[in-house]
C-alpha cells in the first residue's frame, strides 16, 4: 500500500466515523427536542428569584447597544432582582453617550456602565468580563453579547433551570439568527446554527450530559467563576475554556432551548471568515491546552469533548483536505491511488444523510421547515461546507504561526451591521 493509499484509507475511515457520530448526535438531539416540548420549564416564583448580574462586554457597539439594552431591561424577571453591567470597552464610537442616556431614562433600574480606556481595557472579551465581574453582586452571572436581543422569558428560564438542580454549573440557552434574511450567507448561518445546536448541544446533552457554553445567553454560578479566578485572558475562545473548567469542578452544563436570544450574524464573507478563524484558533488553543485531561481519571465526560473536537479539528480536517487533494490529483492524472472505493450509491446516500440530518433540525423552528431551506441545505453541502474546510485549515495554520512566532492572541471583534 502506497502513502497515498494509506492517506486515502485513513481519510475514509475518519470521515465515515465522524459522519456516523454526528448522525447519532442529531438523533439524540431530536429526542431531546421531543422531551423539552413535553416537559415544562421548572417554575420560579418571583419571591424565590435570586439576585442575578447580567454582564455585557461591548466594544464599539453603538449600532446595536440600545436595542440590546431594551431587551435586557424588558426581561420577565423582578426588576430589583437583576442588574445589568455593561463594560464599554475602549470604544471610540457613541456607545458611552447612548449608555448614559439609557441610564438616565431608566432611573429605577440597576444599570452599571463601566467605561474603560486603553489602559484598563481593550484587551479582549475575557478581560472585559473580568472587569464586569468585579462589580457584580448577583449569585448568578448571565452573559450576553452586545448584539443580542433575548426574548422576554429567557432570563427566567435560565434562572429556573439552574436553581432547580444543584448539579448544574451553568445553563445555556439557544441563539437564533436575527438577520437571517440579509444575505444567502446569513441564511446558511441560520441553518448551520440550528443544526449545530440541536446536534452538538442537545445531542451531547442527551447522550453524555455535555454542553459547551456558546459565549452568550448563558447563566453560570458565581462561586464557580470565583473559584476559577475569573476568565482566562489568554483564551480567545473563552466559552470552551469555561465549559471545561465547570466540568472539572464536577458540575454539568445544561441546554435549555426555550431560553432564546436573537443575535446578529456576519452578513459578508470577509467578516464571517475573520470571526470563524478566531473561533477555530480559540478552540484549537483550548483543545491542545486540555489534552492532558485525556489521561486523568476523574474527568470522564470531558474526554469525549476533547476527543470529539480534536478529531474534528485535526483528523476530519486533515481527512477532508487530503481526500480532496487525492481526488483532484487523481482527476489531473498526477497521483494514482489504487485503493478500492465505496460505491457511488453509498456516497449519494451519505450526501442524502447529511441533507436529511441537517434539515430535520429545522423542523424545530417556526417557518424553517420549507422547500427553500431544503434547497439551501443541499447547496450548503457543495459551498458553505467547503468554506468551512478552508476556514478550519486557515485557522489551524494561523494557530501554528502564532505559536511559532510567539504572537499574542488577538481578540478580533465581530463587525456589526446596522
Amino acid at each position, binding site marked *: *500500500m502506497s502513502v497515498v*493509499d494509506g492517506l486515502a*484509507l485513513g481519510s475514509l475511515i475518519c470521515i*465515515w466515523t465522524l459522519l*456516523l457520530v454526528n*448522525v447519532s448526535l442529531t*438523533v439524540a438531539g*431530536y429526542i431531546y427536542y*421531543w422531551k423539552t*416540548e413535553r416537559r415544562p420549564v421548572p417554575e420560579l416564583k418571583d419571591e424565590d428569584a435570586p439576585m442575578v448580574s447580567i454582564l455585557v462586554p461591548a466594544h464599539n457597539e453603538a449600532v446595536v447597544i440600545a436595542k440590546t439594552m431594551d431587551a435586557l431591561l424588558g426581561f420577565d424577571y423582578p426588576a430589583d432582582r437583576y442588574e445589568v453591567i455593561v463594560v464599554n470597552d475602549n470604544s471610540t464610537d457613541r456607545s458611552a453617550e447612548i449608555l448614559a442616556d439609557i441610564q438616565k431614562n431608566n432611573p429605577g433600574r440597576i444599570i452599571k456602565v463601566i467605561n474603560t480606556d486603553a489602559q484598563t481595557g481593550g484587551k479582549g472579551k475575557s478581560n472585559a468580563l473580568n472587569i464586569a465581574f468585579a462589580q457584580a453582586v448577583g449569585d448568578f452571572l448571565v452573559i450576553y453579547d452586545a448584539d443580542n436581543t433575548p426574548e422576554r422569558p429567557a432570563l427566567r428560564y435560565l434562572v429556573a433551570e439552574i436553581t432547580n438542580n444543584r448539579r448544574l454549573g451553568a445553563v445555556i440557552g439557544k441563539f437564533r439568527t436575527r438577520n437571517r434574511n440579509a444575505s444567502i450567507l446569513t441564511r446558511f448561518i441560520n441553518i448551520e446554527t440550528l443544526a449545530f445546536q440541536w446536534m452538538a448541544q442537545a445531542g451531547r446533552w442527551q447522550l453524555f450530559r455535555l454542553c459547551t457554553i456558546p459565549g452568550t445567553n448563558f447563566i453560570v454560578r458565581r462561586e464557580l467563576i470565583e473559584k476559577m479566578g475569573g476568565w482566562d485572558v489568554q483564551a480567545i475562545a473563552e466559552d470552551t475554556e469555561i465549559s471545561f473548567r465547570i466540568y472539572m469542578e464536577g458540575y454539568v452544563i445544561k441546554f435549555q432551548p426555550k431560553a432564546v436570544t436573537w443575535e446578529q450574524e456576519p452578513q459578508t464573507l470577509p467578516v464571517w471568515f475573520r470571526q470563524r478563524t478566531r473561533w477555530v484558533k480559540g478552540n484549537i488553543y483550548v483543545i491542545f491546552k486540555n489534552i492532558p485531561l485525556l489521561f486523568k481519571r476523574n474527568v470522564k465526560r470531558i474526554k469525549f469533548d476533547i476527543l470529539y473536537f480534536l478529531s474534528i479539528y485535526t483528523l476530519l480536517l486533515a481527512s477532508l483536505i487530503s481526500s480532496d487533494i487525492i481526488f483532484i490529483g487523481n482527476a489531473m492524472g498526477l497521483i*494514482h491511488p*489504487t*485503493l*478500492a*472505493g*465505496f*460505491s457511488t*450509491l*453509498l456516497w449519494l*446516500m*451519505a450526501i*442524502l*444523510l447529511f441533507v*436529511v*440530518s441537517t434539515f*430535520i433540525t429545522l*423542523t*424545530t423552528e*417556526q*417557518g424553517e*421547515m420549507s422547500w427553500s431551506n431544503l434547497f439551501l441545505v443541499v447547496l450548503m453541502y457543495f459551498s458553505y461546507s467547503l468554506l468551512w474546510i478552508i476556514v478550519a485549515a486557515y485557522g489551524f495554520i494561523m494557530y501554528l504561526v502564532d505559536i511559532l512566532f510567539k504572537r499574542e492572541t488577538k481578540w478580533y471583534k465581530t463587525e456589526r451591521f446596522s
Partner: protein
Amino acid sequence: MTISSHRCILVFIVCILAALALFPAAALATADGAREMLYIITRTEKEAETLGSFAEAARIDYEVLLEEEYVSPPGEMVLTTLPRVAEDAKNAGIKPFCVGAEFSSEEDVLISEPLDTSVSLSFGEHSQTAAFVNGIRLLTYVNGTTEGTITLSDGRQAPFMVKCDGAWYAPWYEKNGLSAIAISVLIGQYCGTEGTGEMFVIIDEIYPFSDLSALKNTADMLYSAGVPFIARVMPVYNNLDYPAFERYADALRYVQSRNGTIVIHDFIEVLHEWEREPAADRMARFMEALDEQDVHYFPFPYSPLNIDIGTLEGISSKEKNFGLAGIDIMTPFLLDGDEAEREELLERINARWLTIRDYRLRYTTDKYAYESREVTENFQYIKEEERSFTRFFAAGNEVLVVVVVVALLVFGVLMVAGYRLYRRKFYR
C-alpha cells in the same frame, strides 16, 4: 608572454585549421572499410527521393545531401543534378554522374537547348513508345561511350547518356517508365555492381484497418495463379493486444501461407509526435507482437523500383517475356476495387509475361501452413486497475449501506413525528 610566443600559438592554430580542412568527411568514411557510399546531391528533397529510389532498385546504399548542406564533394561517388557540384567533383579528380536538365555543353559533350517534342526511348533489351515531353535536352555531341537511344518524332536520334572520361551525363530522365529503369541500371554500373535484378508483385501498405477479407481473397487469387508476392505491412505500435490486431495477424498468417512474403514498412515519423519513445523501441514492440502471433517477416533493406502494370505494358521487350531489366522492380497489386477488378489486374500481369520471383527465397525455402486462431471477442478495452483493499471496501460498503439506510429510516420516522409536532405547535 613575448610577441614570439604569441606568434607560435597563432601558427599552431592555423595548422590545426588547415589539417581539418584537408581531411574531408569522405576520407574518414572510406577509412572504415565499408563499400563506397553513393552521395546524391540535389537542390530539392523530391529530386533526391526519386534518385534514391533508383539507387535502392540497384541495391546501392546512398546518402542524400541537399544543396544548402553541400560544401565540397564528400566522397568518390557523386550523383548530382547540380553543375556546381559536378565542377567541384571534377576539380577534385572525382568522376560525377550528372543527371537532369541543368547541365550545359562541356568539353566532351554538347547539350541542346530545351525542346518540346515527343520521344521514344530504347535501352538495352527494352524500348518505350513515343510520349510527349516538355523541355527535354539532348546530347548532340559526345566524346565517350553511350547507352540507350532517344528517337524524336522527326526521326532524329540522340544517345540517352554518355560515359566520358571526366563525367557521366544523362540530361533527361523521368520518375517512372523506361528512363527510370535506365537510370537505375546506370547507377548500378556507376557504383560498380552489375545486378541481374528481379521482378516482384507487391501488396503495399497493409494496415490493421485495411480490408482484410479482400487481402485474403487476393492472396488466394494470386496463389491459385502461381504468383508469389510481397505483402508490406504498416507497423503499429499500440494496442497490440486488441482483437483488431489479432485479426490483422490472422490475415497475415493466411497471406504467408499463400506464398506471400511479409515485410515491414519503414518507420514513418509522424509530425506532432508527443510520444518520447524511441522509434527503435516501438518497432521492436511491433516485431515482438508479430513474433508472438507467428507472423514471419523478412528484411527489406532495398525497395525495388515501383512500376505499375500500365507502365510495364507500355515498355516492349525483344522477347515476349519482359525479361530482367538489371534492377529490382515491383509492380503493385491494389486491394481497392472489387474482385472483378482484381482479377483483371492479375490477367494483365499474366499477359505481360513478367517473371515474378518469390522474395522469400532470398532468405528461406520454408513454407508456412495456416492455422486459424480464435480472436478474443469479449476483450476488455479499458483495463480495470488493480485495486487494493477490495474485500475491505466491499464488506464496508455493505455494512455502511445498511447503517445509512437504518439512519435514513430513523430520520424518516423522526421527520413524520416532527412534522406533526410542527403542525400542532405552529398552526394551532
